[in-house]
């Protein structure tokens, strides 16, 4: 049962809520107390946002416990490499032309289809060469059909979120070219209900989804060339009352586009 939403809250009441024995020793620095679920968002702070700072000794307000409840993490299943330091998915495309304009898109979707929420990835075009890696590290061809990287094993999840890091890159080139790393919420390409927006929760009902597109872009003209590699780390989250906000871990995506111009008009 959740803690009260007004009036005085004793430390003992908080301790009991998280499973402690009434009257026994506890402190506001105990990890189970700071890890309580659904803390009061009114007391969000700049450092920690909407949630109690779990670092022992950091500032904390007793009012953050208004309405908080003991929760458990969601069950998840992971199918892909999610170390965050090696690729979970990779796509590559090259083009040689007078005006070489090439993109290598990965489409990433988080889809609620009860009793699961699926994290999925695919390449946009079969002209790309793409792979994904299983959790055992096995490289597998990635096509224009979605594969599941991981899933939340819970029915009735109400909010989902896809976060990504600002893309980093490795770029080489010469002449008049441009290369960039593009990442943005998208619905049409990935066939999703809503745009994903990094850091933002989206309320979903059954069979709804959020998605984004990620690509390395290369454009070369007049005998220029560019090799554009882009990297981003993505994290999927899910939320449901009575459960802790849960993530599937961090998946690294890489996209590479090579544009070679062989003419000048």
């Amino acid at each position, binding site marked *: 049962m959740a803690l009260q939403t007004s009036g005085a809250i004793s430390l003992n009441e908080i301790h009991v809520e998280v499973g402690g024995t009434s009257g026994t020793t506890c402190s506001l620095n105990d990890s189970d107390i700071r890890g309580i679920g659904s803390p009061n968002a009114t007391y969000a702070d700049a450092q920690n946002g909407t949630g109690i700072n779990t670092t022992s000794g950091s500032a904390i307000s007793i009012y953050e416990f208004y309405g908080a409840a003991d929760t458990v993490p969601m069950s998840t299943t992971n199918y892909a490499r999610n170390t965050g330091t090696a690729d979970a998915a990779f796509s590559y495309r090259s083009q040689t032309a*007078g*005006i070489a304009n090439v993109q290598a898109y990965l489409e990433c979707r988080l889809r609620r289809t009860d009793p699961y929420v699926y994290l999925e990835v695919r390449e946009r075009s079969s002209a790309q060469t793409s792979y994904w890696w299983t959790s055992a590290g096995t490289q597998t061809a990635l096509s224009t059909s979605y594969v599941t990287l991981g899933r939340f094993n819970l029915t009735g999840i109400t909010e989902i979120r896809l976060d990504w890091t600002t893309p980093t890159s*490795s770029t*080489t080139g010469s002449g008049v070219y441009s290369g*960039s790393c593009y990442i943005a919420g998208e619905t049409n390409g990935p066939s999703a209900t809503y745009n994903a927006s990094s850091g933002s929760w989206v309320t979903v009902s059954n069979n709804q989804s959020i998605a984004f597109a990620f690509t390395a*872009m290369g454009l070369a003209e007049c005998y220029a060339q560019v090799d554009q590699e882009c990297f981003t780390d993505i994290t999927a989250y899910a939320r449901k009352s009575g459960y802790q906000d849960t993530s599937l871990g961090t998946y690294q995506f890489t996209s590479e586009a090579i544009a070679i111009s062989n003419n*000048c008009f």
Partner: protein
Amino acid sequence: MPKEGLCESCTAVDISSSVERDADGYTTSVTWTFKKYDNINYQYRTFTVDADGNTEDILVPTWLEENLIKTATATYEIPVDQRTTCTHEEPHDHDNEMTFQAANALWADTWKASAEGQAFWEDFNAV
């Protein structure tokens, strides 16, 4: 295609390079200057796409100096077996250009795969 307009999460790296040559015109080193930007604004630009003068509007990334994240330079000393007298210059000669382009790609790939190149990109991306 990317959406036209500002993409705050998107990034781009602008590269300029200078090539040193010996008295015989052979390349001896290349120095790249890398400038990384965010807040990329994708805008259409018209390109001439063939010898008949046909044009096509293509989305290209543009950026502002105020969105510069980082600048760094790197120099690759070109081994003798990778040197060339070919150039990238106007008027463009196809064979000359393609040979220079292949050489430039080889320099870039060799440098990128080296310990020095890998350390460079690790540092450049650690913003």
